[in-house]
């Protein structure tokens, strides 16, 4: 057993209980580094895991963080991808005096082979702390903790030996991410992985060299279940949908009704909810009431369906998404700072997702960027620009036609702007002409 310099009685209490313990894991890495059975010539502090636990213990004592504000580090050629971090007690914890994070652009869908992970782990064990986040909330592989001189070395090995780039940080296009999509899911309405990959490659410059007023995120969800949370966590959300009928296998519907197939793929199996009741659990919960079950046949009135996924989720073996697939695009999601949290607002109800994606790039992404890059204020997210200048301005710059699908409800206040050319006679008027008919 390796020695630990720091006593950590508080965080040691997080080594019990059933859930996997990050404290035990960091200790394991410390022991691995100290034992060093492979004889690695560590390029970052050998005792960093011990010192990290020490800093964390001190934070538990103080109830405050011990990382200094900010930190600007990186690699030449790029304006982002590395988050600098310095400890505010470097004498007590010298091995984490520098503790920078490197964001590594994950493969789409977070699929890996152990061969590829081996390359990444070898590199990070040698040149970093041996600690990671799998994954950052935006999607990146996070290399957690290294020194400034190692940044270029890690980047060189990543790009030369592993054919792998950094992800994004700063006022730029952040690393796009996606749900598992067609790779493993029967609900997917487009190839989220390919679209995400192609957009990541298309906009490498925007990702690596911040040119925007603020950060900008893409996320790709294969269907409205939103497993990568595009609608809440990306400035432009691409969410799969379809325009034609839900495909119904009436025999399979009967099998559900007969209790041969568990509802919702068996998602409620640990509790007795009684026998499946299609009327109560599907038809009665449909938000638009567009379904009918007559005891032997299920009918869906397609024009009334809003494609919420509920019936498909409950009976995945009987109901399938339509064949005329594409995606909806929603814009403006963000966290609260500054003006309040926003979810994405529907701006394109339906667009085909087909390589090389020119229509989406040319009619959606780039016109929005052109507008926001020109008009957006310093640190103003797209969602806030839409609030400040109005949905109408977004329509004007993109050329989208105003349609009722874009709103939850029409405005209730009558403070309606008109453009001068929409009003007969325009706005230039002569008061004397008016006075001819209306005395003072």
């Amino acid at each position, binding site marked *: 057993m390796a020695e630990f310099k720091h006593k950590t009685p508080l965080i040691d*209490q997080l080594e019990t*209980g*059933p859930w*996997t313990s*990050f404290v035990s*894991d*960091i200790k394991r890495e410390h022991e691995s580094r100290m034992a060093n059975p492979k004889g690695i*010539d560590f390029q970052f502090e*050998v005792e960093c895991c011990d010192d990290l636990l020490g800093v964390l213990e001190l934070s*538990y004592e103080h*109830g405050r*963080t011990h990382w*200094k504000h*900010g930190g600007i580090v990186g690699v030449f050629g790029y304006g982002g991808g590395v988050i600098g971090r310095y400890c505010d007690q470097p004498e007590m914890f010298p091995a984490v005096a520098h*503790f920078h994070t490197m964001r590594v652009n*994950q*493969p789409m*869908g977070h*699929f890996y*082979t*152990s061969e590829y*992970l081996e390359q990444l*782990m070898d590199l990070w064990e040698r040149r970093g702390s*041996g*600690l*990671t986040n*799998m*994954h950052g*909330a935006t999607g990146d592989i996070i290399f957690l*903790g290294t020194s400034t001189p190692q940044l270029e070395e*890690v*980047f060189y090995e990543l*790009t030369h030996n*592993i*054919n792998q780039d950094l992800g994004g940080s700063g006022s730029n296009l952040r690393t796009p991410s996606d*749900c*598992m999509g*067609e*790779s493993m*899911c029967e609900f997917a309405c487009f190839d989220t992985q390919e679209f995400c*990959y192609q957009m990541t490659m298309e906009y*490498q410059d925007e990702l690596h060299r911040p040119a925007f007023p603020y950060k900008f995120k893409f996320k790709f969800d294969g269907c409205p*279940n939103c497993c990568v949370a595009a609608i*809440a*966590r990306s400035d432009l959300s691409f969410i799969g949908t379809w325009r034609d009928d839900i495909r119904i296998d009436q025999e399979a519907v009967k099998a559900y009704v007969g209790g041969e197939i568990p509802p919702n*793929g068996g998602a409620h*199996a640990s*509790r007795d909810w009684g026998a499946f009741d299609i009327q109560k659990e599907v038809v009665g919960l449909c938000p638009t009431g567009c379904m009918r079950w007559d005891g032997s046949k299920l009918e869906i009135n397609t024009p009334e369906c809003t494609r*919420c996924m*509920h019936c498909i*989720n409950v009976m*995945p*073996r009987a109901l399938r998404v339509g064949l005329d697939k594409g995606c909806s695009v929603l814009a403006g999601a963000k*966290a*609260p700072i*500054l003006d*309040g*949290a926003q*979810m994405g607002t529907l701006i394109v109800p339906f667009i085909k997702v087909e390589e090389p994606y020119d229509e989406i790039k040319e009619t959606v992404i780039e016109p929005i960027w052109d507008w926001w890059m020109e008009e957006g204020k*310093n640190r103003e997210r797209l969602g806030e620009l839409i609030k400040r200048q109005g949905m109408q301005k977004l329509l004007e710059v993109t050329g989208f036609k105003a349609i009722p699908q874009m709103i939850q409800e029409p405005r209730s206040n009558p403070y309606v702007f008109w453009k001068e050319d929409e009003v007969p006679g325009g706005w230039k008027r002569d008061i004397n002409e008016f006075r001819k008919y209306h005395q003072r």
Partner: protein
Amino acid sequence: MAFISSGYNPDKPMENRITDIGPRHYAEFYPPVIKKNKGKWLYHEILEPGIIVHVAEGGDELYTIRCGGCRLMSVSHIREIMEIADKYCDGYVRWTTRNNVEFMTDTKEKAMSMKDDLLARKQPGGCYKFPIGGTGASVTNIVHTQGWIHCHTPATDASGTVKATMDVMFDQWENMKLPAKLRISMACCLNMCGAVHCSDIAILGYHRKPPMIDTEYIDKMCEIPLAIAACPTAAIRPAKVELPDGTKVNSVAVKEERCMFCGNCYTMCPSMPLADTEGDGIVLMAGGKISNRIDAPKFSKVVVAFIPNEVPRWPTMTTVIKKMVDVYSADANKYERLGQWAERIGWEKFFEKCELEFTHHLIDDFRDPAYYTWRQTTNFKFT
């Protein structure tokens, strides 16, 4: 430790530089059964908590075992994941959007022998290394942030609050007995990195004291107009201040009664720190969701204005979370998410049933939209 060059030449930094190559192509990492059946999946079924089978048009099957992950993972732990992937899955593995690990294999037999192996792997303190669960109507992994491990603006810790909560919620992780899935998220400050604003239950680090001003340094360290523009409530204005030695410096003044402690000025200006032992703690939010299932996505709402940072296990916080989950579980209809349930019964009933104190902090007072959160009807329930 002797410096070992990667081949990078610091004297000629732009020479041999490779840039803009992006991520590796995902298809390199697809297991063969996925490569073959991509886009051809017919249906799926959860065989038991944490184990899913997908069936393709041609009849091919894909068995997936979902294991909890800490998100914060060591190289050693990932090597163990690789070893398991090599042993049972021909070296293939993936992570989910909630930071669980999924091992995929093409037969049920391999999946079941892998299951026993995974559950037998424990850490020295007895924690599972690879707890199995997180599927269906369960509490799955907690999307969380950096906390005191790596960030400079947190008001609480991320990894610790998450471990404490998942230990208390473990029974819900390894079972599927809730009315619907229940998403818990955590963010250590209100930048809300992650999913706090759209989760069934959310843990949010919060401050309760205005920033201190490091007057001597502020004009040297900060772009003062940016700090002023960073304030959502316009509590900050420029000010000239005289230091004890008589020098006049440019600084800022904070109107304390207008500050709601968001910390965004500190994000922009290192001379305005606000972290505080007693002041900082946890806000709990509830009722958010992301999916469009049945009704539209919802923001989570603040339901507990403050719980202190009770290190290392935050017992008050986990007790309140467990109470909310238990009451929701007992009261909600099948398929009803926590927010849908709270809206159906009315938030006044939510507070009554969950035995949560309602305080003035929970009433919105941020700008014009606050009005729309008050009750403009006589329809309410007596509690």
